[in-house]
């Protein structure tokens, strides 16, 4: 029924509880459990009380000893360390790697200064989103990108297919999938001061979206000042044999204030920050314009097109999209994905794609798609939960102000 995502994952906890006595369900659950991939931090998670759940083919911690509520708040007050090694890091190299990548994404990769990055979207022929990704220009002939774990197979197949055709025409590009590396996300106000203990590089000179290859805790790491929480922070791609040591060092240097944080709080944090979860808030049939990511389409790309689905996307830019992603605050029970959204006259205007209780605001927050015109902040709506209509209001995102580290 659902494409996946954390909502379902959280949902499954109790459902498993209720169904564990039904043997067929239990057996199916076990069969999949054995096939799950483990990150190099798996034992570390279990030792620290990580509650491991299946996610996108991996066994990942949904939470540790702290509750999701506590973890979410602590990330914004102190800091969080996440294992996101299930995500797929990829390098594209060769003198034509940018020309090649620009056919597949909408961002202006050529215009990125070396050592900087941006959020972008892989589009299909119809302008829909295949995946979202953070793209970094390491150098003019080296691009580093990270794609979603759940999209890995289809993304790699998509890239490979186009790469074959590109190379057949003489293009110079090759790829390397960074399965030898693990990915840690260190987020929150203590991220920079804690990480500074572990590197000689001056982190105050590295701003939001910047990228460096530097030595951290004795290992050569890919450091990107980015994240998925709305807080200042870093994603650190570390050679896998050094990942556990780095995680330990970070926790130790923070004197216990940076806490291991699971996918549950990660989902609350990104929702509070108004960030899309691919598979929920963005899918094959949703364009980046509808998703509110128009800002990530470079000016040159708008003028020139030249990426998959450009016709549809450029037309939408001109005429305006028919639906738009919007944020909501609502009363009653938290709205979850697939809750119907109605206008104040009771007519259907759209659907929630992610929603939950905000641990930081102590309110129900959600995002979803509504007809253009109904997306403006302040618009009153009704959100249906289990057949009952509850009052909601369109609210500007991010719900919680973001704290990215930018030059003043």
């Amino acid at each position, binding site marked *: 029924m659902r494409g996946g995502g*954390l*909502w379902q*994952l*959280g*949902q499954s*906890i*109790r*459902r*498993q*509880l*209720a169904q*564990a*006595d039904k043997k067929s369900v*239990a057996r199916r*659950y*076990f069969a999949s459990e054995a096939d799950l991939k483990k990150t190099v931090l798996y034992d570390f998670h279990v030792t620290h*009380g990580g*509650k491991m759940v299946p996610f996108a083919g991996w066994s990942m911690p*949904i*939470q540790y*000893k*702290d*509750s*999701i*509520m*506590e973890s*979410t708040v602590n990330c914004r007050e102190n800091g969080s360390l996440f294992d996101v090694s299930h995500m797929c890091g990829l390098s594209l190299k060769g003198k034509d790697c940018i020309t090649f990548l620009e056919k597949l994404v909408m961002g202006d990769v050529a215009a990125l200064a070396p050592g900087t990055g941006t959020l972008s979207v892989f589009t299909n022929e119809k302008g829909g989103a295949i995946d979202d990704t953070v793209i970094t220009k390491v150098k003019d002939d080296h691009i580093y990108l990270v794609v979603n774990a759940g999209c890995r197979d289809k993304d790699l197949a998509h890239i490979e297919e186009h790469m074959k055709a590109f190379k057949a025409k003489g293009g110079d590009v090759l790829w390397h999938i960074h399965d030898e590396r693990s990915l840690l996300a260190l987020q929150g106000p203590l991220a920079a001061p804690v990480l500074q203990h572990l590197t000689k590089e001056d982190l105050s000179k590295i701003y939001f979206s910047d990228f460096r290859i530097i030595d951290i805790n004795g290992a050569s790491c890919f450091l990107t000042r980015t994240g998925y929480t709305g807080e200042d922070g870093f994603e650190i791609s570390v050679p896998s044999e050094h990942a556990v040591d780095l995680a330990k060092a970070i926790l130790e240097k923070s004197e216990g204030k940076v806490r291991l944080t699971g996918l*549950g709080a990660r*989902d*609350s944090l990104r929702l509070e920050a108004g960030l899309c979860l691919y598979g929920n808030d963005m899918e094959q049939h949703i364009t980046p314009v509808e998703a509110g990511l128009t800002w990530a389409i470079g000016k040159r790309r708008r003028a020139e097109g030249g990426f998959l689905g450009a016709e549809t996307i450029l037309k939408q830019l001109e005429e305006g999209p028919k639906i738009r992603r919007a944020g909501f605050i609502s009363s*009653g*029970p*938290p709205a*979850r994905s697939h809750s119907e959204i109605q206008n104040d006259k009771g007519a259907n205007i759209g659907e929630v794609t992610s929603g*939950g*209780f905000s*641990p930081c605001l102590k309110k129900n927050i959600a995002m979803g798609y509504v007809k253009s015109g109904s997306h403006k902040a302040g618009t009153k709506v009704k959100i249906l939960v*289990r057949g009952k209509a509850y009052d909601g209001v369109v609210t500007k995102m991010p719900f919680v102000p973001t704290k990215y580290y930018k030059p003043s």
Partner: protein
Amino acid sequence: MASSRLLWASRAASYLRISVFHRGFSTVLKDLKYADSHEWVKIEGASATVGITDHAQDHLGDVVYIELPEVGAAVAQGSSFGAVESVKATSDIYSPISGKVVEVNEELNKSPGLVNSSPYEDGWIIKVEAKDANEVNNLMGADDYSKFCEEEDAKH
């Protein structure tokens, strides 16, 4: 006596926020009956009080909303009568007993977290006028339920 000591322990534990992860050690009270969907029922004459178990609240995490039925609504054993919303999950609550709802715990509208802090007392959910007290024979006693939870946890 034993049960009140356990309750105290459970409350102290949740106050100290150490209750979230004690697998296999969730509190189970002797005089209650339990459903395999993790609700408890306490029978006192014709009145049956219903809530979710310590084990259930432990797995659900912070409860943020409880959808309560109306007083007067009919409930049936094994059928859903409401929902518990935690930060991440929505879960139906199934009635362990059939009858008519005579009271709902309005306190939960203001403080849904009572289900976490006091699942067997302040966090009760509904009171039911039981139709057939013999229905409790379909439910588990404390020992069986403890074993049931341990087995479930062992699977994960």
